[in-house]
């Protein structure tokens, strides 16, 4: 136990050092605006991937409607800061909480389904949320909301990301996290061992939705504009690619996957169809040849993570080396 604690604090220190370095680089102007927005996007994507991994990888419930929760958080926090002048951080938290409530409401009926059916149901819910937003005049319909104050800074983003990773990682290592793992391994056996499977599935789903909502809020306050179209099935798919790429069930893997996909996204911005083709080929090849993901089920360690992120931020995009 003591060793884990040591590792934990070491990890935090490495992460903070990383934060400090990037902060210095940003203030001295070594990193330009494109790189800055890429870093912010990495933070958002890490939050999304890690939270989806909790649902898909740890609890084994296949959800492909993550963008729906993201949109709930994004719209809620944007409306709060635009129309009600709510402080930024509070608005983000409110967005997350509303997304979590949606998670409970959607989770309770759908989590009785398993496997493919659950996947389709979550996809359906994601689409329904999008269509509701599309048809609501108050949130701008198809043109969405614009002029959202750009209040996300590197500091805020980084700490939100760090808190997300630490909380989810601690959850996974707790009793409750073990229960979720047991459900993934064998639901019937888990139930026989006295685990309340429905409860834990809903908890995992809700936690995932909470962090996805916050990530949505943060991204809305980074990129000024949100439209229902930016939270469609493609977005859910992109988050799924991050998680699968890193290895289902591995938090570190999700982080690496998120960084990799963001780099791909930024550098292939002008060739969107190539980007999608690369995503899909990667997905197919991964499933056939390395279903465990690039990192397999490597246990999470902030120490390793620190190194990997430092590498990625240094501009080396070859995260597959790990």
């Amino acid at each position, binding site marked *: 136990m003591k060793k884990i604690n040591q590792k934990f604090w070491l990890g935090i220190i490495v992460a903070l050092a990383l934060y400090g370095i990037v902060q210095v680089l940003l203030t001295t102007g070594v990193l330009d605006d494109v790189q800055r927005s890429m870093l912010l996007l990495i933070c958002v994507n890490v939050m999304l991937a890690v939270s989806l991994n909790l649902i898909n990888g740890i609890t084994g419930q296949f959800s492909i409607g993550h963008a729906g929760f993201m949109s709930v958080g994004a719209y809620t926090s944007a409306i709060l800061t635009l129309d009600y002048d709510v402080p930024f951080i509070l608005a983000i938290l409110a967005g997350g909480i509303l997304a979590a409530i949606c998670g409970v409401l959607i989770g309770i009926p759908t989590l009785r389904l398993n496997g493919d059916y659950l996947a389709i149901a979550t996809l359906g819910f994601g689409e329904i949320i999008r269509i509701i937003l599309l048809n609501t005049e108050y949130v701008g319909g198809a043109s969405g909301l614009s002029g959202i104050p750009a209040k996300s800074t590197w500091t805020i983003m980084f700490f939100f990301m760090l808190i997300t990773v630490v909380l989810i990682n601690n959850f996974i290592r707790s009793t409750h996290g073990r229960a979720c793992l047991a459900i993934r391994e064998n639901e019937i056996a888990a139930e026989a061992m006295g685990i309340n499977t429905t409860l834990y599935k809903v908890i995992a789903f809700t936690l995932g939705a909470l962090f996805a909502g916050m990530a949505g809020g943060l991204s809305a306050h980074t990129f000024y504009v949100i439209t229902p179209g930016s939270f469609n099935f493609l977005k859910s798919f992109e988050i799924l690619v991050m998680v*699968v790429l890193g290895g289902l069930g591995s938090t570190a893997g999700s982080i690496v996957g998120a960084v990799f996909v963001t780099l791909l996204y930024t550098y292939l911005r002008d060739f969107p169809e190539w980007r999608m083709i690369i995503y899909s080929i990667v997905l197919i090849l991964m499933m056939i040849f390395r279903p465990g993901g690039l990192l397999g089920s490597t246990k999470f360690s902030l120490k390793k993570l620190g190194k990997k992120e430092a590498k990625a931020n240094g501009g080396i995009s070859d995260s597959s080396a790990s």
Partner: protein
Amino acid sequence: MEYFIQQLINGISVGSIYALIALGYTMVYGIIKLINFAHGDVFMVGSFIGLFSARYLASAGLPPVLVLIISLIFSMTISALLGITIERFAYKPLRKSTRIAALITAIGVSFLLEYTGVLVLGPQAQGFPDILAKKQFQLFGTSIQVESNQVMILITTIILMIILQYIVRYTKTGKAMRAVSFDMEAARLMGINVDRTISATFAIGSALAAAAGVIFGMTYNSVDPLMGVMPGLKAFVAAVLGGIGSIPGALVGGLLLGTVETEISSLGYSSWRDGVAFAVLILILIFKPSGLFGKNVREKV
């Protein structure tokens, strides 16, 4: 009332398209328990092949009915080959792995087809040539109108259904398909070539989707590489509605969904149309996951 019946007729022609696509989903699911997400994109590919062959044949000066039949058959054949190829290279290596892995692969194949399409054909929609001259018929002296296209859709769907029923019920392949979907291992022990049967299922499903694609192109006069996404998802909803794994269920589910959607649009809620389809899906999944015609399967430990 006449308005309602008019919408019903329109709904049936949309529903026939959903039904044809849903058959492919339901057959593949019945046999290897995989939601073949790429099915909607096979529908897209079929539509494009139909478009190109119709353009070519029409410029060669063939009579319209012949153009229709030849491009339909050509498109169905190529798509059947595509279906077999997809199965062989993407799904077969995964037959022993988890269902989630197969599902992720299916999503991957779907996006691969879509964006290869965007890359090769460009993202803009292309016009589908008018193969048959459009005529309107008045029904029994009322104001209800039936278009020649809707008649064509219905006739094509019925013919394909009869052929499908014949294949599934009376041919050796059909018998093998039913046996494999019942119990793959036992079928293998009985000397059935399981791999070939699965390929045949994919071929038939993809051919039906291609037929739906050609019909879709003729009805809406516009095809684009991403056109398969929504009809694909809705056809899946139709398959679930009818009871996945059941062939009559796919037909009824497709027609039902098409009708409901058209009625919703005609009431002035056309922007909610897609939402309704998914709401139907979720209600069915929650209250009767086995669908209207499905069998209740108990989970084995």
